[in-house]
Structure formats: structure tokens, C-alpha cells
């Protein structure tokens, strides 16, 4: 399934704009890995993304969150985490 939900499409846009990626946000497959061989993000991107998420959704990412491995696993996992924790 390549179709993005509303929140996934919003988060895909946030990823592409905050990281200045030369990518079409709509082309990010929700289940594809964000880091490594998937979208190819790295630790510097994670810091940038954390800033953008905190500004847009009003909560802060923590790396000692036991679910951390899952949160950044894919666009769909990140979107679920944002929906669950957002304050705005």
C-alpha cells in the first residue's frame, strides 16, 4: 500500500520541507524505512526533524523513549507517534 493517510501526508511534507530533501512528499511510501537504505535519513536529520516536530506538534522527542526504535521506523510509525503525543 502506497497511499498516505491525511496525517502521513502532512508529516511527509514536514520531513521534505524541514530537511530540504529533493523528493516528492507524496512518493514516500508509508511503510518504507526513514533511515538507512530507505529514505536515507541520518542522525543530523533526526535532530532537524525533532525541532520541526516540536514546533508544529508541541511535544519533544526523547531518545530514551523505549519505543524510539519504532517511532522512526517509518513514515506511518512516526505519524502514529505524533498523533498520540501532539498537543497542537
Amino acid at each position, binding site marked *: 500500500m502506497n497511499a498516505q493517510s491525511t496525517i502521513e501526508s502532512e508529516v511527509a511534507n514536514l520531513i521534505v520541507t524541514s530537511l*530540504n530533501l*529533493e523528493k516528492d512528499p507524496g512518493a514516500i511510501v508509508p511503510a518504507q524505512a526513514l*533511515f*538507512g*537504505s530507505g529514505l*536515507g535519513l*541520518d*542522525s*543530523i536529520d*533526526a*535532530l*532537524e526533524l*525533532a*525541532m520541526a516536530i*516540536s514546533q508544529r506538534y508541541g511535544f*519533544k*522527542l*526523547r*531518545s*530514551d523513549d523505549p519505543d524510539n526504535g519504532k517511532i522512526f521506523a517509518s513514515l506511518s510509525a512516526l505519524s502514529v507517534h505524533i498523533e498520540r503525543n501532539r498537543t497542537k
Partner: protein
Amino acid sequence: MGASLTYPLIEGYTGQSILAWDQHRAITVEEFLGDTSAVAAALPEAGYLVNVCEDRYWFLVAFAAALSRGIPNLLPHNRTPATLAEVRDRYPGAVFASDQDQPEPGQIGLNIPNTARRGTARPFEVPAIAAAQTAAIVFTSGSTGSPKPNVKTWGSMVQIARRTAQRFDLAAGKPASIIATVPQQHMYGLETSIMLPTQHGHAFHRGKPFFPEDVRVALNSAPAPRVLITTPVHLRACLADGVALPELKLIVSATAPLPVELAAQAEDRYGTHVREIYGWSEAGSVASRRTRTDGSWRVFDGSTITRDEDNGRFLLNADFYPAPVPFEDVIEQNSETEFRLVGRSLDMINVAGKRVSLGDLNFKVCAVPGVRDAAFYLPNDSDNVVARLAAFVVAPGLSEKDILEPLRASLDAVFLPRPLIFVDRLPRNETGKLPLNQLDALWKTHRPK
């Protein structure tokens, strides 16, 4: 001659002093000595210990155990499969010390937490380590495609720690809490988050806080005075996030040039001083400045700058180096002890605080099957704080994935080209060289947007 000169493994503590802590608990010096002797007793006869422990405390236990057995610590600069395989081939029989449950396949591994658990707290007897002993071998990116080993004696590491403490008012007697966002396998992290605290009775945080919120939580878990060891990338993230940090005695930054505005902003926001350390792998930390007020760098006390009469290169002298160490970057000398940075080395470049040799990157991309010619390029026209590398490749028939996948196995992810630009040929001159102005021009015609 001080043939038998030694320095203690740790200094400035009593048996009950706090050496390290995390959000769960604090570890005393006696407990550390017990863990270290258990690991030292369990270490096989080996020429080298590859210390890849991620937890700063387990790293120190493995480091200290190896020191007390006279075994050098090998510190790979990244953990990609290719780097670890290369270390294994170059140092056959080396033992891998890890704090992860799953050691890399094919390695003779020692799980440090499990091994230490067999020990018990020991009375306060601190081992003495010979100054001339090789304590660590730190790897840096070399221009020939192979990591370059830098040998560090125990004496030089102790001396640099002492000079750093003296410069930053962190001498023994007033225990501080040290929190670092940088890895201990790199020179800067090893010197400031392991050697500096443990030679002066300070406590260090076991973790490596990453997000601004992690930094806040780690700092709040420690009593004042607190010292934050970090990089421009993390400092900028904390400022942009607006995170509130507790009172700080000092912020130390290194690995990349810290913009003056960023330093001033951090000083105002956190009510502290921001000091930068300058150094490079061959020499270690050599100088410091308060970024906001000092245009010049002052070398640590006891060191001097001289000039090599034959080739005009500037040299750093200190009695603990086997020979004067040439500066890697271009400097302008103000006096015997002060200098300004004029230009960075053309081969060694910096991405997000990580240094790499362009020659090494070019070697690796050209080694990808199907690549006929290639060159990495660091654009200087980016609005982004972290400039990203681009690469031009001549590789008919290959896809982006065909090139990135093999690179990913041997390069830290921050060095992967973004973008990767396919071209028909590179503008090499008649001697085969790629003049920088030609690459600048190529970039102008191919850069995105």
C-alpha cells in the same frame, strides 16, 4: 630519564566518590575498581582490545581493564561493517569489547557488563599506568582510503587532561558533573568526557544525550557545577528548541567552527561561558578560546608554536609528544602561544562535526563497481547550517541506489552524497587533477533548483 614514570589510572577521588551516573543510579569509585579488576582478569591474552562500548561507563571499565593489562584500546571512528572488518583484518586476534547483547558475528567478543558482574567492590587501590604505554589507537579518515591509526600514550592523554582542567578551572578539589553529547571513541569525546573527569575527581554521565530534551533531562539529573561537552550542531538544536537548561558552569564545543552569534546566544540564554577547543587527531586538544570574545586561540600551558624552517609549516611543541606535530589547518601565528585560524585543510573537510578526508571519500566512491570516475564536493553556497556533500559520478548504466548502497557499508551516513549527480565526464586538467574552480563551475550548472 623517567623510564619508569607512571600516572594513576584515576585521580582526585576517594573510594566513595561518585564516578559516573545515569537516571537510575550512581556508581562509586570502589565499584568501578571492582568491575575493572573483574574485566582485567577475564581479558584473554590479546594484542589489542577494540572498545566499541556505547555506554560511557562500560567503555571506561573496558578501557581501564585493558590499560591495567598493558593492552592498547583500538577506537574505530565509526561502526560500519567495513570499518570493523578492516580493524579485524589489520589487528588479527583483537578482542572486541562491547556492551551490546549481540556481538558482531565472527568477532572474539567480550561482553563487558556481564563480565564485570562477576566482580565485587574493591578497596581503594588505584593502579599506576606507565606513561610510555600505548593507551589508545584512534582512527581517522586517511586520504588513501584506509583509516589512519593515531597512537596515544597514557602520558600524553594524562597531560592533555591536566592542561584542559587547568584552562577551564576544573582541577581536582571541586567535583563537577560532566555531560557529553559526543561519542567517547573520538579524540574530543575521549579527552573531555573520559580523561578530563577521571583525572580530576569529577563525575560523568553514562549516556550520550541526543535530542535537546535528552540534554535537559541529563543535566537535571546531576548536581552543580555542571559542564556540557557538545558540538555546534547540538548547541544550535538546543537553542532552536528553546529548551530550558539548569545552571551551567561551562559549555565546551569542538569538532566544527562555532559561529560567534551562536556562542553569544548560548551564553546569554544559559548564563554561562562557551569555550571552544581546537585540536586534531594527531595532536589531540591543543588550544582553546572563548568564542564570543576571543578571535585568537591560546595553546594549553606548556605548549608552544614554532615553524619548520624547511617547509614553513607551523608545529605544535609539548614535552609529551614524541616529536613536534604539524598543524593540519592553515594558521597565522600571533605569538609563541597564540594563533588565528586562516583556512581549513583542503583535504580534511567537516560535515556536521565529523571530519573526513576528501581523498578517502573519492577513493571509496571510485571503488564502487561500474564507477569510472567520481569526485566529492562540499558546496559553500548552502543556507543550511549543516552543509551536505555532493558527489559527481561518471557511471553509465548505474542507478543512484547502485552507488549509495556500497557506500553506506563503509561510510558514516552524514558523508553520503546529497545530491549524487551523474555527469558524462569530470573536468580534469591535463595532469589529471580536478581544479577546485572547475568543480565550483560544475556545481553551479548541476545544483538542484
